[in-house]
Structures are given as structure tokens and as C-alpha cells.
């Protein structure tokens, strides 16, 4: 199977701090991959580097053979690579439906700028909202949702955009534990129903074990180890890193 994302020797420094150092990883098309590591190990920085939030100091990032590292933030999603945020980012003053409708992928040509939103969008949006279980809240202002619900909404918005690959930053953080299994099921469903590659930062090992087919582990800005979940679980370095960190 081909690689959808290839990260080669990416380094990012903030002043003296080595946030990412010589990170390399490949992600296979259609797989579910998880990225773990103690806090401050540079996971989110890596996400930011990939989606162009900040320029990287060295290395290369290829998404379907296209070099991302020189692209601007808004140029990357149209390629089909999307990310969600650890601290949820949603359009607080607008209703959930609006949040969904805007997220629909449309070309940004000046011609299409002033299109009306097609009716069938409502249907699609409602489908996906109900899929993540926000259907009845759909007319509320997104800002009024709980943190967990906002996470779900952000996920739904991402789906609305029909990406090829989705990068989720701690999708289960702050979500009611009883719902977590539901989330896992849905993520898996997303993966095989919509054929979306998932790249998930996650702390909750249970989620990782049930979700990921392949796991990368970072520590202190370096790639520590990678492999099948079970291997990682029993990997000495990984355990030390976590213990060392916690």
C-alpha cells in the first residue's frame, strides 16, 4: 500500500528549544496511525509543522508526493489533509449547522465566492451531526456546547470537508468516558466507510490499543520508537519515557 504522508528528517526549533528533531515517519493510505508520547514531547508541534502553522527549519513533508513544507496554512486542506485542535477551535457565535455548512469543501475561486449554500447541504450536515450525536443541538450556538461536544462538532466539521486524511489532536480528551467507546467505533467507521486515513495524537492507551494499527512514540522532540500497538506497549524505552515523564 502506498504512503499518503511522508515526513523526512523534519526539525523545528523555537529559539534554543528543540521541539522536533530529525523526525521521520510514513503513513500508509487508509490506515489508522496513532502518535503517543509524554506531554511536551513535541507531538502537537509536529502536527503544526505538517499543516504549515509554522515553517519548519529543515526536512521535507510530502502528502501524496506534494511538498507541504513551503505551503501556507490555507493551501493544504484543499489537498485533502485536515487537522483538529487539542483546544477545540469552532465558530462560537454561529449555530452548529452553520459551522458544518461552512466547513464544506468549495473552491475558493472568486466566481464561487458568492454562491448561495445549496439546500442539500442541510441534509448532509444533519446526517453527519447525527452521526456524531449532536443532531438535536444543531440549531444552538456552537459556543454554548460543552467542551466534549465541541470536540465532536470539530470532528463533524472535519468530516464535512471530506478529507483524504484526518489528523486528530486528542479526540477523546475531555469527553465523558462512557462515550469514549462510541467515539472509537465512529472513528473506525469513518476510517472504513469514508476511507479516511486517521493520524491520532492520543494519551488514553485503551483508545490507542483499540484504534491504532500502527503507533509512533515521541519523547523530547525525538522519534523514540514505532511499531504495532502491542510491541510499543511492551517497548522498554517507551515505558521509561512515560515513567520518566510522569
Amino acid at each position, binding site marked *: 500500500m502506498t504512503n499518503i504522508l511522508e515526513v523526512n528528517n523534519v526539525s523545528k526549533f523555537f529559539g534554543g528549544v528543540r521541539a522536533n528533531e530529525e523526525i521521520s515517519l510514513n503513513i500508509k493510505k487508509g490506515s489508522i496511525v496513532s502518535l503517543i508520547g509524554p506531554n511536551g514531547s513535541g507531538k502537537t508541534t509536529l502536527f503544526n509543522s505538517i499543516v*504549515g502553522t*509554522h*515553517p519548519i527549519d529543515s526536512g521535507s513533508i510530502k502528502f501524496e508526493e506534494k511538498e507541504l513544507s513551503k505551503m*501556507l*496554512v490555507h493551501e493544504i486542506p484543499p489537498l485533502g489533509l485536515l487537522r483538529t485542535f487539542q483546544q477545540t477551535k469552532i465558530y462560537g457565535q454561529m449555530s452548529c449547522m452553520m459551522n458544518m455548512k461552512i466547513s464544506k469543501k468549495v473552491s475558493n475561486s472568486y466566481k464561487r465566492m458568492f454562491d448561495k449554500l445549496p439546500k442539500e447541504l442541510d441534509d448532509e450536515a444533519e446526517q453527519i451531526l447525527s452521526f456524531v450525536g449532536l443532531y438535536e443541538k444543531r440549531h444552538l450556538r456552537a459556543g454554548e456546547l460543552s467542551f466534549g461536544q465541541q470536540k465532536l462538532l470539530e470532528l463533524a466539521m472535519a468530516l464535512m470537508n471530506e478529507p483524504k486524511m484526518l489528523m486528530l489532536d486528542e479526540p477523546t480528551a475531555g469527553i465523558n468516558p462512557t462515550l469514549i467507546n462510541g467515539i472509537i467505533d465512529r472513528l473506525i467507521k469513518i476510517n472504513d466507510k469514508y476511507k479516511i486515513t486517521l493520524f491520532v495524537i492520543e494519551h488514553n492507551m485503551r483508545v490507542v490499543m483499540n484504534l491504532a494499527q500502527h503507533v509512533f512514540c515521541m519523547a523530547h522532540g525525538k522519534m523514540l520508537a514505532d511499531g504495532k500497538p502491542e510491541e510499543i506497549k511492551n517497548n522498554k524505552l517507551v515505558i521509561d519515557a512515560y515513567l520518566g515523564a510522569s
Partner: protein
Amino acid sequence: MILIQAPFLNLQAILDGLMIGAIFALVAYGMALAWGVMNIINIAQGEFVILGGYITFMVYKLGFSPFFGAPLSFAFLFILGFLLYKLIVHRVVDRDMFISILATFGISIMIRQIMNLIFGSQVETALTGLGTIFLFDHNITIALVKFSSFVIAVAGALGVIYFMKTSKLGRAIRATAQNPRAARILGVDTEKVYAYTYAINAAICGLAGSLVVMTYTIHPYMGLPYTVRSFMIVIVAGLGNIPGVLASGLGLGALEELSAYAFGTEYRIGLVFLFLVIILVYRSKKLAKRREYLK
């Protein structure tokens, strides 16, 4: 081009510039304080200055030397600032900054009009009776009053900085500036700190004002340029960079004078504002390269 015909004028211009720049720097320092600590932009800055000027002018009218007015203006504006905080400003401190801009703008209008109603809007100035020094056989002229106001301004600024470094309140203010929540947890009464910060800011403006009325002229509607100048100075220096504020204050003064010599006084205000825009854009362009923006 007169600056080339008479080379001494350049030096003259820079000297004049530094002397007016000191006053700008003082006002700007006040703004930086309020901005850094309370995260509000005080549009009423200029009106505080002019009001301070009028207090000193009153003292002068009563027949005292305006120099006695300086501490009085300082004290009066301190009280006024404190009251204003308690009445209005404390309601906008933790709000969106634009709210604070508008609110203080409202305050500035009120102060301006009330000054006009109380003092009338004749152009006023206070005479110190100080002489003039000539250097390089009359090629360089320095009005002593300007020079002394320069000294007072610098002394005032340094005084406040010293106060910030040493006194208990000063330390509390600096702590709050760095991290209000942490400061609160450590038992700093941030409300009190804010109140005093705003009062100190006003007081500084008052001092500057009394220097303005001694050196130049005032009337109730001359506030805004001081506000915008100080804003610009703070932007150029960067928040929390006190020496930077003083430096760029002096720099702006010199630049203005030079431009006034070169293009004529008429462009002066326009250039100030244009310069402000250029600085803003330039700095954010630079940040944009790092895909960031001025926060």
C-alpha cells in the same frame, strides 16, 4: 534645502527634538504601563496631559512659578485617575480591548468638553521667566525652559521606573503585568493594583502636561496627537520594553523636528500618523514571514 545651507540647524533640530521627545516618552511610558498591566489602551491619555497643563496654568495664574504646578498636576491627575478607574474603567478592564478603546475615548470627549467649559478654550501658556543659552556663537539656541522640562521629564520617568523596581506596590504591579492570575493566587489584590496603575498613568500624564504648558501652548482640543504619538512610541518599542519606550520617544521627537525643518511644520502631524501605520505594517509583515501576527 535649508538643512544643508545651515548645517548647525541639524544639530539644533535634533536638540529641540530630544527636548520635546522627552515629554512624548513620558506620556508613552504611562500608556505602556496601563497597556502592559491592565491590557487597555487609554485614548484619554492626551486629555490627561492637557488637563495637567491647565492645573499648572491655574497655579501660574495665582502668581506662583509654574514649577510648583508640576507636583500639583501630578497629584491632581493621580486622584482623578483613581476616581475614573473606580467609576468607569474597572468595568472594561477584562473586556475586549476595543471596548476599552471606545470607553476611554468617551472619557476623553467628556474631559475635553469639561475643560472647555471650565477654563474656556483660549490658547494658554505659562511663563517661567527662564532665559536662553547660546552655544557655538549663537548658532545653537536652547531655551532654558525646554531644557529644564527635558530634565524634569527624564527625572520623572526614571523616578517612576525606580518606584516600580523597589516599592511593594511597584513589585505587585509588575507581577500583575506578567501574570494576573498567578499574582491573584499569590494574594495580590489586582483590583487595587489596576486602580493604582491607572492613577499613576494619569499622574505621569499630568506631569507631562505641566511641562507642555511651560514649554509650548495648550488649549482643550490639543490632546489627541499626544495619545497617538504615545501609542506609536509603545508600538515601536514593544510592550514592556521601558528603555525602548524612552529611546523611541526621544527618537520620534527628533524625527518630527527634522521632518518639520525639511518639509515644513504642516506635514508634521500627518507624518506622525503615517509613520505609525508604516511601523505597524512593517512589523506585522516581518511576523507574517514566520506565519504569525502582532498579538
